[in-house]
């Protein structure tokens, strides 16, 4: 039509003076600046580091380690050095018996290559690192995969597939260990019952074991059976013989560990040597963790036992496992722990052992030893280094042993590998090369407990290594290397234990946890998430009020290892600010999300902890992790706590992050079990011997009061905003569902009534005037006219085409049709706009019933008859909408519109008809009473949607509007996004104009359903909800990124399902293929954005108050003629 709306009328939204927009712009700018300023201020208030720091005494563990004066190494007596003498060598007769046995079993000579066995554990990343680095220096690896336990000798298998693959790739033979160990308790009964039990049980066990060994594709099994009753030696011999036979049949080997103490007597070594492929002698443990401090394997002790083995059997069948670790005895608490060589170095370095005279590794023990003290008590450390390794290896090789083991990978002095690789005797130059102690970045551990602080500095050390005349090496440590250190504290009393809860607070679970703790009078520490604290500040206050401690667990449960320092600081500071604003206290306690039970093994893993420490936090890890978050069952949670209790004293549970009913169920049992065990559940403050006020100092009134006020207000506003958004989401979802169900129900009822109602009795057909306004419609108008003229309408009909000043051949085309059919009349006028053209057509019409159609729309033969039917039947009906369908649905854009016409427009109209609240009788296909139009004042010129305007005007006059679903008309839809956007902008702007113009009808009881249902529906669902699409999608993305994805997705799915349901229903009612409804999914993702864009464009245009033109679309004439 014309290039602009008709001038002169009161064009809705027009601001002729042009003042509105500049004024509005100024306001928007001012509001934007204020908002931006507030946000910046809030971020700054969070960013300013909270003034919390704890007592410096907490962190200065380094200064609290003191080396004991004087060396322990040389002068200390070693009463166990000659313990081997209690096992006199067997007689030569024994040797001969051994030779006969071997001959009888037909054993082949050993392979000439030296066996090099690496003892591997899967729980220490250093073991894997060592294995990766030194795989080429090993021939065999022994992982801890198998165990037997219980009186039934149950076989437990925990293989490690990546390790197996690695070993296979590197040509390493895997010989897994089979222990009779459950947790940390030896189970001699398991082996004893197996050995003396029924033969079928033994056979079943052996078959199971061999099956596992075969399926895992490993070379055999290494038995490590301890605390066996020597009285059953013969039974063990029999058991090993049976096991050996089965293994050999499967081409697998049987290895047996023999410890150099009383346990060596559990087996008749001579008798079992025929069954066992290799014996592995554990050549350390002269002083174990349960003994008084002493050398782990002094040279005297070592060589004495080598001699005993030589008397017992053939050294060629034996592998000697050389100790490569240290032990730290706490002689005050009577506890001990196995440590790595590097740990021993760091502890020596930090205690200043070199200043106390250094540490010798010399005759007679050739074993490193020093003493130090920490605040908890006195310590003695013994360690086995590359010097001891060399001397022992020298003796073992000289005695003809077939191989050596490194016990264990990951704890060794790195220079043992230089020793091991060297086949010829060492010289002074070699001694010099192992003098320098290179400190790599391996993390070492000092102290005990799970509250840690970090020192990432590292520094090389020095030992003076001297080659003796006898080929042995000796050394004197003069400068201990310093590795990156994780200081541990909080070991506390051995019966002290602390409960910690992560991820809360949560409105459902935290109160239950607090109730249990209160009922039992037990304290705990809650490591809270900022976002949850913000949601439930009352719970934070309750936690504190009931005497518990609060720690920082970041704001969003973010993985600190994967974020930048600034983000990490924001996470911590925001949470800290929030805690301050809620409780008035600060906290110095921090626990990193994820892997708080995984001890850091690399300097990269230490970085976040160090950063947290720099920010002033005390990092609280844990060792007892029953993984309650995975919901393994309350019983399993309890059992895991029991199993891990000896490993540490801080228990990790969760009071949020999912269904925590199992945690709540397990908690009382855990508390009862700990109490029965004799433990005392203490706060972190008591565990660390730090006053609660130091761990959680009150916020000083003078400390950054304005920043705290801003942060507090910001958090509250944010909290309310989030609450509002959630409420809005729930409200909107409910409204969408209710509306959709209502529409579906009304449409279905309407459909049923139409189907039931018989066609009205034939009466005298009413004469009809068909009116077409045309502007540059030359391409399509001929077909349109042909479709109208072909209508099977029995009554008189005239067709009036008003050419609104077209610049093309529209008039000529219409003229030629008029020549051939007298029912057609052409009226020409200067361009004046669509509503003016329609008014002109109306004035020329001869009949009361006027049918409107767009110049690009084709009628079916019954369309006019169907349109007129309702008008003829009911005088209160003044307008009837036809069923407009997309006639050119051949690409994605038009297919989307096709579905939209079916389920968006027609379904709504069908439903609205039921309650007589149709909001638009479209100009594309409709029939109206001319008298009613005139009563309404004719077509207005003040909106772009004259059809909507007319429909609403007729409602005002008390007329009804109907939808005739069988009055089908095929219209041409825009084929490209640009054209569609142009059309929809016109529709959106026009609709908004009409809504604004008739805003008094909304909620006006006079207009019933129109006022309370269909008009508010347009406001809310077609304008408001579409406009906030970008915001909704942004919230959705933010929620997914913040971990609320699971909850948000539910709402999103409800929206999508509702859309799909309506689309499917509409397709069914219109007899369209149901599969077409699937298009709703891409439409939801793409099409809705376009609608949002045009709505916003229309809103801005409306606010600007500019005159808006028609935006006439170019016709393509792609609607096929359906005649």
């Amino acid at each position, binding site marked *: 039509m014309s290039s602009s709306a008709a001038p002169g009328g009161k064009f809705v939204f027009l601001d002729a003076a042009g003042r509105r927009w500049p004024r509005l712009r100024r306001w928007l700018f001012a509001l934007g600046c204020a908002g931006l300023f507030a946000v910046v201020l809030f971020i700054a208030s969070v960013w300013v580091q909270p003034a919390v720091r704890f007592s410096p005494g907490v962190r200065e563990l380094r200064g609290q380690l003191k080396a004991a004066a004087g060396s322990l190494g040389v002068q200390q007596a070693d009463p166990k050095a000659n313990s081997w003498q209690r096992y006199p060598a067997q007689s030569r007769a024994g040797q001969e018996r051994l030779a006969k046995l071997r001959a009888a079993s037909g054993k082949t000579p050993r392979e000439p290559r030296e066996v090099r066995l690496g003892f591997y554990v899967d729980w220490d990343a250093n073991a894997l690192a060592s294995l990766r680095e030194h795989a080429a220096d090993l021939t065999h690896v022994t992982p801890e995969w198998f165990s037997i336990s219980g009186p039934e000798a149950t076989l437990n298998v925990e293989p490690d597939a990546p390790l197996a693959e690695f070993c296979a790739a590197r040509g390493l033979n895997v010989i897994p260990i089979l222990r009779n160990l459950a947790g940390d*308790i030896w189970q001699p009964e398991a082996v004893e019952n197996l050995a003396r039990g029924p033969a079928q049980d033994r056979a079943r066990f052996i078959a199971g074991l061999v099956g596992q060994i075969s399926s895992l594709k490993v070379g055999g099994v290494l038995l490590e059976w301890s605390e066996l009753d020597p009285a059953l030696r013969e039974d063990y011999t029999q058991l090993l013989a049976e096991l050996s036979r089965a293994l050999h049949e499967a081409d697998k080997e049987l290895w047996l560990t023999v410890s150099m103490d009383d346990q060596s007597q559990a087996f008749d070594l001579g008798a079992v040597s025929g069954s066992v492929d290799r014996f592995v002698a554990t050549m350390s443990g002269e002083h174990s963790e349960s003994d008084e401090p002493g050398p782990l394997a002094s040279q005297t002790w070592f060589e004495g036992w080598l001699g005993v083995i030589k008397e017992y059997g053939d050294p060629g069948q034996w592998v000697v496992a050389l100790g490569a670790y240290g032990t730290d005895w706490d002689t005050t608490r009577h506890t001990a722990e196995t440590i790595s060589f590097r740990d021993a170095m760091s502890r020596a370095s930090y205690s200043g052992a070199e200043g106390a005279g250094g540490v010798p590794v010399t005759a007679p023990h050739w074993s490193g030893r020093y003493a130090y003290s920490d605040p908890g008590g006195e310590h003695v450390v013994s360690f086995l280094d590359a010097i001891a390794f060399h001397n022992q290896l020298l003796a073992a090789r000289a005695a003809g042993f077939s191989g050596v083991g490194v016990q264990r990978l990951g704890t060794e002095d790195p220079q043992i590998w230089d020793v091991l690789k060297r086949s010829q005797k060492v010289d002074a130059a070699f001694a010099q090369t192992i003098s320098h102690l290179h400190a790599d970045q391996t993390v070492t551990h000092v102290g005990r407990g799970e509250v840690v602080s970090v020192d990432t500095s590292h520094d090389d050390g020095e030992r003076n290594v001297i080659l003796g005349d006898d080929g042995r090496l000796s050394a004197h440590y003069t400068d201990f290397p310093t590795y990156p250190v994780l200081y541990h504290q909080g070991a506390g009393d051995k019966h002290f234990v602390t409960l910690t809860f992560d991820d809360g607070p949560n409105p459902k679970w935290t109160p239950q946890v607090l109730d249990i703790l209160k009922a039992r009078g037990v304290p705990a520490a809650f490591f809270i998430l900022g976002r949850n604290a913000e949601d439930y500040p009352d719970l934070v206050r309750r936690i504190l009020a009931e005497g518990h401690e609060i720690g920082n667990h970041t704001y969003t449960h973010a993985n600190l290892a994967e974020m930048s320092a600034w983000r990490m600081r924001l996470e911590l500071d925001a949470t800290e600010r929030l805690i301050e604003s809620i409780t008035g206290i600060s906290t110095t306690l921090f626990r990193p999300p994820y892997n708080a039970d995984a001890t850091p093994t690399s300097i990269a893993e230490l970085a976040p902890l160090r950063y947290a420490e720099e920010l002033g936090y005390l990092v609280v890890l844990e060792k007892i992790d029953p993984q309650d978050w995975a919901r393994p069952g309350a019983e399993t949670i309890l059992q895991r706590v029991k199993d891990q209790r000896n490993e540490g004293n801080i228990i990790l549970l969760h009071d949020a992050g999912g269904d925590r009913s199992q945690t709540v169920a397990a908690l009382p049992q855990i508390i009862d079990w700990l*109490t029965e065990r004799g433990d005392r559940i203490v706060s972190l403050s008591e565990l660390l011997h730090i006053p609660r006020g130091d761990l959680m100092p009150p916020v000083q009134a003078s400390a950054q009061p304005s920043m705290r006020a801003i942060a507090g207000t910001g958090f509250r506003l944010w909290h309310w905003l989030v609450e509002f958004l959630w409420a809005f989401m729930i409200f909107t979802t409910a409204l969408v569902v209710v509306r959709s169900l209502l529409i579906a129900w009304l449409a279905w009822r309407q459909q049923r009534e139409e189907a039931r109602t018989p066609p009205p009795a034939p009466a005298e057909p009413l004469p009809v005037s068909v009116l077409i306004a045309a502007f540059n419609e030359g391409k399509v108008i001929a077909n349109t006219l042909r479709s109208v003229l072909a209508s099977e309408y029995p009554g008189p009909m005239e067709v009036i085409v008003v050419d609104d000043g077209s610049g093309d051949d529209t008039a000529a085309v219409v003229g030629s049709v008029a020549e051939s059919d007298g029912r057609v009349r052409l009226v020409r006028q200067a361009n004046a706009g669509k509503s003016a053209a329609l008014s002109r057509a109306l004035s020329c019409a001869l009949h009361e019933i006027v049918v409107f159609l767009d110049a690009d729309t084709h009628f079916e033969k019954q369309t006019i008859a169907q349109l007129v039917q309702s008008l003829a039947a009911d005088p209160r009906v003044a307008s009837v909408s036809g069923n407009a369908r997309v006639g050119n649905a051949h690409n994605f854009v038009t297919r989307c519109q096709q579905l939209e016409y079916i389920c968006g427009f027609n379904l709504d109209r069908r439903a609205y008809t039921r309650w007589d609240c149709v909001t638009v009788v479209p100009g594309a296909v409709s029939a109206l009473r001319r008298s009613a139009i005139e009563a309404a004042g004719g077509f207005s010129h003040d909106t772009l949607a004259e059809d909507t305007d007319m429909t609403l005007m007729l409602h005002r006059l008390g007329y009804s509007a109907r939808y005739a679903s069988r009055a089908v008309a095929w219209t041409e839809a825009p084929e490209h996004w640009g054209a569609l956007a142009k059309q929809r902008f016109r529709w959106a702007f026009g609709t908004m104009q009409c809504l604004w113009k008739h805003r008094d009808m909304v909620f006006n009881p006079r207009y019933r359903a129109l006022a309370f249902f269909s008009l508010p529906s347009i406001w809310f669902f077609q304008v408001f909800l579409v406009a906030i699409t970008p915001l909704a999608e942004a919230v959705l993305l933010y929620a997914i990124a913040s971990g609320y994805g699971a909850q948000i997705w539910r709402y999103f799915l409800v929206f999508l399902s509702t859309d799909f349901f309506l689309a499917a229903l509409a397709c069914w009612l219109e007899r369209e293929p149901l599969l077409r409804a699937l298009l709703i999914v891409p439409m939801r993702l793409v099409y809705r954005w376009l609608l949002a864009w045009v709505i916003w464009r229309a809103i801005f245009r409306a606010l600007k108050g500019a005159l808006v033109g028609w935006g006439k679309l170019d016709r393509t004439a792609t609607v096929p003629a359906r005649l």
Partner: protein
Amino acid sequence: VRSPFFLLALLSLVSLAACERVGSRGAAPARPSAGAAPQSLVLPRHGLYTGAYIDFGEHEDDVTLEKIEAFEKMVGKRQAIIASSSYWGEQSFPEANVRLIARHGAVPLVFWSPWDRPYIETRGPDRYSLTSIIAGEHDAYIDRWAEAAHAFGHLMIVSLGNEMKWVPARTQRAIRGRKPSKPHGGTSWIVSARVAQPMSAGCST
């Protein structure tokens, strides 16, 4: 139950039952109630009490709930009596141990062995020789121990010297003759005879 002979018979049955790992879940004694003294061990109406001398480490005094539960899980039965040791060389009453056992709902049986550090099996008479006990050289320790046992306040069984031949009756009389200053609580004395080698780990008669 006051008769030592009766208790001897009872404990023998108890130990045998434990060794045979009887699976039936008999009546366990009721949990001791605090402050209800004096107490005594009442014979069960049906069946036997089962008890165990569980492996509590080299000094037989590293009593932990984990070890008790592991043993009970293994034999499939809660133990009514749980034995552990108190060596004189420690010069202390094993309060934590007996309280743990009592909390677990069992009666503690303490083998009170007059041995001195270092605890070496083959070592001859030491500081706590029988003559020195009879001479009253350790009366102060014995009294302290008895006071602590009294303060414990729950039923417990004490076996002085695990094997009779090592502790002559007159030594026992000398010790049992020591009276605590307050009325005695629920301590019962038993004398156990060395009748055999241990039948298997964790059991002894």
